[in-house]
């Protein structure tokens, strides 16, 4: 399949789509006009597809500077009567939370969908928060798809629901839905309106106490109305496999595991699948509970529905057992899979469920930690900084490395070990400010270009104003790298590939009054080391911007131009000092079984930094 087919595919055709791709198609079928995001795994591919097709689709799309801005862009579009779609990873909703909560109060005019891609088991995230709780906190209707087809269909349903009740709608996916591929039956793409018109009404869009007191009441009334909708929605359905001893209530990915275990084992159970799960359909669930002997709730991550079910049981004084996370039938943490659900269900079905003999090995397996790519400009940055620290005879234990969210966080791995603290987007600098005040240790903060624009500017202002002593290294690799390579405000391209003004990190740093500001190309090791030496001795806020394109960009450019430079090690002259392997650690350089050092031409990106690293200069361009 070509990406373009997500737009051009006709009604009735089938595509094998990723959950994230299905979300794009659903938005297009729903007549979306404005789409905004800040990239974050597992939601990123939604943006990557819009980047490629938005212009042709006649949709406005942007990579906003952060999730809060993205949410505001979509909220305004919906207030102006357009259909809008904002998506982010689960923790992105924390960044957007302030405006998210208020937008639920103000409501919308055009349909607005907020998609949160949660990450159970934390495949690429800092926590395992369950944004179904966020839905309850905000008072927003919640939809939970179980596969790509449902992702697409719920997008369209969500727009209609949002418009009917003038409230944004939250769709919660998880990694296993966002990154699940499945057969999707296409519907018709609807062209959204190009421009809306904002009809003024301060009493609806200004959240002063004078107005929000009324809005709060309206919100609760809306939710009561919407609950009637969720009670009768065909999205919430009962699958009757016969028998009424056990009723299973489930949603999202967990539903898939339940279905596979039930059909494989021929279990006689009733299943209530909730895709429209907030406001919780109390009467529907009550009816279901009344028709079974015991209840099992299967859900990822928190016991959200389980507590709702317990509340219903308490409210109606029902004497039935509820199995789930709270009684230990199923695990409290991490994502589920068919095996975990099978083990849980076996505890209550009084029947041995199918278990297969699996194989195992006692051989040691090599550790495949994530590592900076060959040719990555962050590696020479860390290498030069390490050398500068050594030359100035600074003690490693006296330096606090406050790092941030992005590829460069991999600097915490050996041999660099330059990562001591990292909690959230932009935290490197705020945490740095705190350490600067609380200790006499040297503080070095690392942040990427995209993360700097996202949440690095307010703490930089804080550092300057409060006279902190920090070396801030802005690792500007000209892309939002970790999430797969999206544009950001520092790049002369916008979210649709159109030319756009390039925002200068250097000018921002100078503008807010940082004492020392230098921009260097980290691939020049000698110069980089000198600049770091100066910055390390600076008393105040020093900002060093290491500017060099991500290897993903240079590799793609070289491929296009047909340039292929590979380096090799002159075996006769190599003294096997191993500095390139042990201190620089490019994944392309390895030790052969016979002890010789070699460069894997498949991995070598031709950056040539290893030539500078080699003390004997025996690394040369391969002919």
């Amino acid at each position, binding site marked *: 399949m070509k990406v373009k087919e997500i737009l051009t595919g006709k009604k009735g055709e089938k595509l*094998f789509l990723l959950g994230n791709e299905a979300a794009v198609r659903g938005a297009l079928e729903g007549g979306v006009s404005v789409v905004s995001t800040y990239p974050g795994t597992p939601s990123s591919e939604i943006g990557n597809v819009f980047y490629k097709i938005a212009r042709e689709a006649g949709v406005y799309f942007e990579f906003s500077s952060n999730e809060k801005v993205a949410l505001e862009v979509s909220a305004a579009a919906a207030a102006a009567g357009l259909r809008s779609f904002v998506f982010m990873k689960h923790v992105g909703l924390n960044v957007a939370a302030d405006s998210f909560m208020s937008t639920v109060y103000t409501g919308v005019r055009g349909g607005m969908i907020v998609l949160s891609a949660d990450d159970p088991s934390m495949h690429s995230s800092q926590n395992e928060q369950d944004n179904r709780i966020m839905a309850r906190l905000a008072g927003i209707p919640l939809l939970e798809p179980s596969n790509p087809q449902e992702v697409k269909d719920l997008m369209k349903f969500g727009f209609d629901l949002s418009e009917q009740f003038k409230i944004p709608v939250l769709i919660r996916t998880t990694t296993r839905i966002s990154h699940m591929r499945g057969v999707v039956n296409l519907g018709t793409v609807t062209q959204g309106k190009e421009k809306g018109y904002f009809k003024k009404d301060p009493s609806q869009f200004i959240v002063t106490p004078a107005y929000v007191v009324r809005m709060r009441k309206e919100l609760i009334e809306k939710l009561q109305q919407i609950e009637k909708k969720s009670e009768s929605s065909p999205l919430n359905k009962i699958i009757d496999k016969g028998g009424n001893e056990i009723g299973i209530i489930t949603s999202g990915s967990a539903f898939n595991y339940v279905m596979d275990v039930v059909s494989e084992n021929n279990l006689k159970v009733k299943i209530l699948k909730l895709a429209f799960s907030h406001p919780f359909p109390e009467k529907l669930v009550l009816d279901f509970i009344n028709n079974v002997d015991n209840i099992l709730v299967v859900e990822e991550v928190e016991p959200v529905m389980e507590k709702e079910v317990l509340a219903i049981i308490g409210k109606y004084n029902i004497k039935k057992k509820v199995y789930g996370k709270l009684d230990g039938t199923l695990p409290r943490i991490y994502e589920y899979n068919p095996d975990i659900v099978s083990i849980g269900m076996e505890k209550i079905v009084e029947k041995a469920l199918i278990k297969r003999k699996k*194989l195992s090995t006692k*051989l040691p397996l090599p550790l495949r930690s994530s590592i900076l790519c060959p040719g990555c400009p962050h590696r020479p940055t860390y290498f030069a900084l390490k050398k500068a620290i050594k030359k100035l005879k600074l003690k490693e234990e006296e330096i606090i490395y406050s790092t941030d969210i992005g590829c460069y966080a991999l600097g915490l791995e050996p041999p660099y070990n330059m990562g001591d603290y990292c909690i959230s987007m932009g935290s490197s600098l705020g945490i740095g400010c705190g350490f600067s005040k609380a200790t006499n240790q040297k503080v070095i903060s690392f942040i990427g270009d995209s993360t700097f624009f996202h949440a690095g500017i307010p703490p930089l202002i804080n550092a300057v104003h409060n006279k902190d002593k920090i070396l801030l290294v802005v690792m500007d690799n000209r892309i939002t790298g970790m999430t797969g390579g999206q544009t950001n405000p520092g790049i002369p391209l916008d979210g649709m590939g159109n030319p756009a003004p390039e925002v200068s990190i250097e000018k921002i740093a100078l503008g807010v009054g940082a004492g020392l500001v230098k921009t260097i190309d980290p691939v020049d090791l000698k110069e980089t080391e000198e600049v770091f030496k100066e910055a390390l001795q600076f008393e105040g806020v020093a900002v060093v911007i290491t500017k060099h394109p991500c290897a993903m960009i240079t590799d793609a450019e070289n491929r296009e131009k047909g340039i292929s430079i590979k380096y090799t090690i002159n075996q006769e002259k190599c003294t096997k000092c191993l500095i390139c392997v042990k201190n620089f650690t490019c994944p392309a350089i390895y030790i052969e079984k016979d002890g010789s050092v070699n460069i894997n031409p498949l991995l070598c990106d031709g950056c040539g930094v290893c030539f500078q690293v080699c003390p004997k200069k025996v690394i040369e361009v391969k002919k």
Partner: protein
Amino acid sequence: MSEESDRGEKMSMKNIYRIQFIGVGGQGTIKASTIVGEAAMKKGLNVVMSEVHGMAQRGGTVVTELKIGEAHSPLIEEGAADLLIAFEPTEALRSLNKINCNSFVIVNSAPIVPFTVSLGISEYPELSSVFDELKAKIKNLSIIDAQKIAKEAGSIISENMVLLGAAVAAPEFPVDKDLVIQSIKENLPPHSTEINLRAFERGFEEVKN
């Protein structure tokens, strides 16, 4: 194994065919499995697949799981894979928990040694012992030098197509070869189709014979 579980296993294998691909970031495992999935869809079969994106792609292990048939979840139950395609020898060992002694297993013999081994913080076992271990545990095993075959076919990058060809040659593979070829043509850049198809055919022959 109890009688009941034995029977259950055979039954489920009739309805659902489970394939796991495992490799290292950058080897093209996701592309290869997507091609299989699309081909299955073309045949009119239901298919679900799980893939890995994000941090793991930077040199880490990449796993994709496919279920062809009436399955809801793409995640393969322990010991249930009908077919395992390992793009790297030690990655085959990492997937042992997903297969049983009757699974069909294809292993690329070309190793990828991670930097952790050079740094001395982990160990890469002797290749011969890896192969001995695989041979001892797996009845239906096919070890092929996909890297060499890809080179001969015209480009080392087509390694994933060699392994895809090998997979299609597995007994009971539920999707027709022609549909897989059609799907390759639709998924990969036209200028590389010739090399990719050559690599695919060579991989297919390697297992078929």
